[in-house]
């Protein structure tokens, strides 16, 4: 093949990877309330975006796509799990009239989108593992739905150590971005109270597919526990390799921040043995809203809802509750309403800390069931405990949330 042709193929390949966007022209009428769901359909979280979309749609359909007597126009855009694309899509949607937005899924990307929300004065709800949205980079327009990484770390470490008091040598496997770093910091912090020794802490890129290298390193450290701070396909892939290399079930494996049922059903029952799971939501949560939501979701989509659709569902419900409370669709009025909102939702009682925009709510800790104990195919885990210890004041880095 000639040099020229070879170059052509490479060039065209590069174009194909970068150049494909999804144009969408949609102008809302001024009486509509336009809400953007910024959900990834491509990139590392391509598998999560469609689930987010399901949850958000269900919350809006519950209200017949109306609030305060006005029609809601729901628009959704693909942020491609990239900061550049996501901020561009958000800006375009705002130009088209959106004043409220929810998403995206990746913490690192959401931090960039949060800056757009601040600059364009648009209400932004997000659920994810970075502490910066309600921490160092807090501002008046963004809200965090997920538990604080401190709450998650505390719930997981305390309850795991209660069940396994001798397991002091921990090896950590961490997704190398905002969410992983936040949780790693607090796991190490809470670990001090239990006298834990961290024999290893490896960071892997988001979207890693080859976990054998990490698992082999973990095995060489001879840990009592392997704890992972990663999500989705990364967590599933790493859990599978931990099993393939013979670590689990001998050594317990913790998924610190899991999507719950969506990750667990991707693992064979053998792989789930001695697997412990922290999650922002589990579908057997004993709340009225969760029971109703899980039943109608399962009737529609066959599998029960995990963290992704549930958070989108609950954030949308929170936003709508904000409209109701404010009795207005003015962005700043809705923000003020959310700042003092108390709501009983999918995870149980929740309220927003007006000073940081962090939602205070329970976090779940699960233990997976061995194959023999499962009553049916989806009887994957028991909720062992929930925890809601808020971030202690000395760690809080949102000193002043500022004005509008």
């Amino acid at each position, binding site marked *: *093949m*000639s*040099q020229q*042709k*070879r170059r*052509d*193929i*490479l060039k*065209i*390949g590069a174009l*194909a990877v970068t150049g494909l966007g999804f144009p969408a022209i949609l102008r809302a009428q001024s009486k509509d309330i336009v809400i953007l769901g910024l959900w990834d359909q491509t990139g590392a979280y*391509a*598998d999560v975006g*469609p689930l987010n979309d399901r949850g958000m749609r269900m919350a809006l359909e519950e209200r017949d796509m109306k609030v305060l007597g006005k029609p809601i126009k729901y628009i959704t855009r693909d942020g491609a799990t990239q900061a550049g694309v996501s901020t561009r899509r958000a800006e375009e949607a705002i130009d088209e009239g959106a004043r409220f937005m929810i998403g995206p899924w990746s913490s690192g990307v959401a931090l960039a989108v949060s800056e757009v929300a601040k600059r364009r004065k648009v209400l932004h709800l997000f659920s994810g593992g970075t502490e910066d949205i309600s921490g160092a980079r807090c501002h008046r327009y963004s809200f965090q739905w997920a538990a604080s990484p401190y709450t998650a770390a505390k719930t997981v470490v305390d309850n795991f150590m209660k069940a396994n008091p001798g397991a002091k040598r921990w090896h950590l496997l961490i997704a*190398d971005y905002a969410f992983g770093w936040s949780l790693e910091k607090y796991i190490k912090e809470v670990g001090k109270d239990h006298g834990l020794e961290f024999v290893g802490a*490896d*960071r*892997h*890129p988001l*979207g*890693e*597919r*080859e976990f*054998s*290298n*990490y698992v*082999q*390193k973990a*095995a*060489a450290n001879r840990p009592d526990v392997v704890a992972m701070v990663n999500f989705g*396909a990364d967590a*599933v*892939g790493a859990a*599978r*390799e931990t099993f*393939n*290399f*013979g670590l689990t079930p001998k050594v317990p494996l913790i998924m610190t921040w899991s999507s719950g049922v*969506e990750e667990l*059903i*991707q*693992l*064979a029952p*053998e*792989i789930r043995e001695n697997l412990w799971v922290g999650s922002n939501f589990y579908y057997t949560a004993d709340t009225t809203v969760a029971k109703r939501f899980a039943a109608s979701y399962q009737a529609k989509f066959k*599998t029960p809802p995990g963290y992704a659709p549930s958070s989108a569902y609950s954030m949308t419900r929170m936003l709508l509750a904000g409209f109701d409370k404010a009795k207005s669709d003015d962005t700043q009025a809705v923000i003020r309403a959310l700042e003092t909102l108390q709501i009983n939702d999918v995870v149980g009682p929740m309220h927003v800390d007006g000073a940081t925009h962090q939602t205070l709510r329970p976090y779940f800790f699960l233990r997976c069931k061995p194959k023999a104990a499962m009553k049916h195919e989806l009887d994957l885990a028991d909720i062992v405990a929930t925890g809601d210890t808020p971030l202690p004041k000395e760690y809080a880095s949102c000193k002043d949330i500022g004005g509008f």
Partner: protein
Amino acid sequence: MTLLAGQILNGIATGMLYALMGLGLALIAGILNIPNFAHGALFAVGAYLTVSAINAVGNFWIALVVAPLGVAVLGLVIEYAGIRRLYAAGHDYQLLFTFGLSLILAETIILIWGPVGISQLPPPILRGGIDLGFTFYPKYRLFVMVAAGLLVTATWLFLEKTRYGAIMRAGIENKEMVSLLGIDIHRMFTVAFALGAWLAGIAGALTAPIRGLSPGMGVDMLGIAFVVVALGGMGNVLGAIAAGLLIGVAQAVVAAYWTEASVAVIYLVMAAVLVVRPQGLFGIR
């Protein structure tokens, strides 16, 4: 030291799979002169067909033979019904066709097998691991290393030592001449594409118990396959094998000391090699 030895072993096992993928893509790029953007999707189809075959017949080994053949047949159809019409059309049309095809295949996987990933355990005889002294290693990975190594060698022998292989290599060098010698070049194109698809399918089948299955699994592998082909020298078979191993081992060794860079290293190695040898490791032009 034991860690490094373990990682190198790991790198060879992964590298063999990369080589298998790259080899199929290199064959198609070399003989048909098209960038096959559907190669990753064919890899995914191979993995999914394997799981379905295991569920249907309950035997991993039968599935391992049948599923890749299914992908080869799919390859025959794709070449015969689609790609054949685009040989004269230029790279942009071929790219659009194969890229579109990859999207269609990925969506078809979602329609048939659903959007949520699936786990497939290795066959019972290959579950668990062996203590190699310096490291504990899964039996299944050792099997994959040997199986992929044999397949790569067999493909290479086929191309080097058989008459039809010689015709194919001649086709890479000069299609018009081969055609003038009275050889049905269109049939050779079909065979080459099916062979490439078969290699992708078998890589998918072997990978399924290691990485599990998800509709997007082909995308991850496609990028690596292209790196292998560019690195090895376009259309060069030995180059693809060497490049696959090089990337696998580089990834594993980097992961031992600097885990954050384990994905970036693939592209760094490619960039470094292409700066020194723009034609790739074994490329001539």
